[in-house]
């Protein structure tokens, strides 16, 4: 049970002078039951890979299968787009959430039951369903958009910058929910917020100009990131630890929470 990506190449504007090779023959297996962090700079191919895995586009070359089948959005895979709340357009949130489910041939009661269950998973109340999406704040809408994808019961879920433009409170709330549901759903987590990716992911893959330059566990990633020029692949807290380590301070480079970083610095200063 996995997503199998085999020799995948994807080219935009093929055959024109501006042909762009977004993915260049990549191979990757995403096993069930993991949170998979996808990291890389602008133009590295992250969003292209996400749309191919979600079945929104077919690779120019190579193949992608999900549990042996072709990716089919809403069936074996779900995707939460960047700024998903901008896609709401109905007069009530309920109408927007029902849209995907109506294609599944479920009874009205079953549809309601699934929507109520999913709202509960993301910590929203039923009352919100009668509100207009245009009257809710971005944090709440993001949770609702997330619920609209969850309600389809995807086995694999791709989250593309799920916390962009959220305030810290809403962001923490969403990250907690993602951690909780990851026990049942395999998650591919794409974000430039390295602190968050580190926090949620079991494994990380780094893309650079359409190639995979790192694939390993969170702990291996921190080692790898420390070895890269400028430390730009490390979250700010680990950058600070790494710089202190370079200055000769004895600190644990693998802690990721601020309290632990402060504790590391305090201890090493006490020893000197």
């Amino acid at each position, binding site marked *: 049970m996995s997503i199998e990506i085999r020799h995948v190449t994807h080219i935009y504007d093929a055959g024109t002078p501006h042909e762009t090779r977004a993915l260049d023959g990549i191979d990757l297996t995403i096993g069930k039951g993991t949170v998979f962090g996808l990291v890389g700079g*602008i133009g590295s191919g992250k969003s292209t890979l996400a749309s191919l895995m979600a079945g929104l586009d077919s690779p120019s070359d190579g193949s992608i299968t999900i549990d042996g089948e072709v990716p089919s959005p809403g069936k074996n895979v779900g995707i939460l787009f960047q700024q998903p709340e901008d896609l709401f357009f109905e007069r009530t949130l309920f109408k927007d959430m029902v849209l995907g489910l109506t294609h599944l041939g479920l009874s009205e009661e079953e549809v309601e039951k699934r929507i109520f269950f999913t709202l509960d998973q993301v910590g929203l109340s039923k009352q919100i369903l009668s509100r207009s999406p245009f009257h809710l704040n971005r944090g709440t809408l993001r949770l609702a958009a997330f619920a609209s994808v969850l309600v389809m019961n995807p086995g694999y879920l791709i989250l593309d910058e799920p916390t962009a*433009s959220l*305030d810290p409170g809403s962001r923490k709330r969403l990250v907690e929910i993602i951690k909780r549901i990851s026990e049942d759903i395999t998650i591919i987590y794409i974000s430039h917020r390295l602190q968050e990716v580190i926090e949620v992911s079991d494994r990380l893959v780094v893309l650079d100009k359409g190639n995979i330059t790192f694939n390993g566990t969170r702990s291996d990633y921190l080692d790898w990131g420390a070895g890269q020029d400028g430390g730009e692949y490390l979250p700010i807290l680990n950058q600070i630890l790494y710089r202190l380590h370079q200055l000769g301070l004895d600190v644990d480079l693998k802690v990721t929470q601020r309290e632990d970083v402060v504790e590391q610095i305090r201890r090493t200063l006490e020893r000197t």
Partner: protein
Amino acid sequence: MIEFNDIYFSRSTGPVLEGIQLRIKKGEYLGIMGDNGSGKTTLARLMTGLLLPEKGDVRVNGISTGDRNRLLEIRHSAGTVFQNPDAQAIGETVEEDLVFGLENLGLPVPEINKRIEKYLDLLEIRELRHRTIRTLSGGQKQLVNLAAVMVMEPEYIILDEPVSMVDAGHRRIILEHITRLNHEGTAIVHITHDPDELTGCHRLIVLSGCRITHNGTPPEVFNQLFVEKKMDVPAPFAISRELGLPPVLTTEALLEEICQLK
């Protein structure tokens, strides 16, 4: 100067902003923080007349945003980069998008080319010049939108979450460039949730409950926020405070403080 004189703005759900008094001087670098729904984006939209206040008035260089005959003047002196990268693009390709505004300014072709090359280089996105905008990622679109406003070389640049989908490398380039534009005289209004982006601004305000609740230099405001524990502050600032060191805003300054203790 951009002036907000006792502004009130509401939606059907209730007030969004009330009693807002704010002056943004020429050449200033102002940071704005606040939770989702606190009115930050509304404030940005009021600045260029995209929204009009119900009470009070907003003036850009003395021109009221309610004066529809002079809106073009206002839009030439103040450019906005919006948070949703899809809401902004006009052209089919990146180049067409950048050319659009410059042609409207009536600039000669050689000048248009010069400016486009300058800003594509500065933002390190030269390779995107001929790409179709619809095939770009969210982060790439944000960079293009930023370039589209920068090529116009306005007096004020208003940035609403300009780098929320941008990688660390480009984020650093953008922030450095914003600071440089500011040193050269462009006023910057920078709205963000990420306090680490605001360590270079002159003044920082926080919006909460429809009002400006904090207004001061970044160290002053971050200090209040740290004590109140309501909002994030830059990581080096929090660490220096928790270690009982003099509060600092950047990693470099934090390392220096720690090394002095060693």
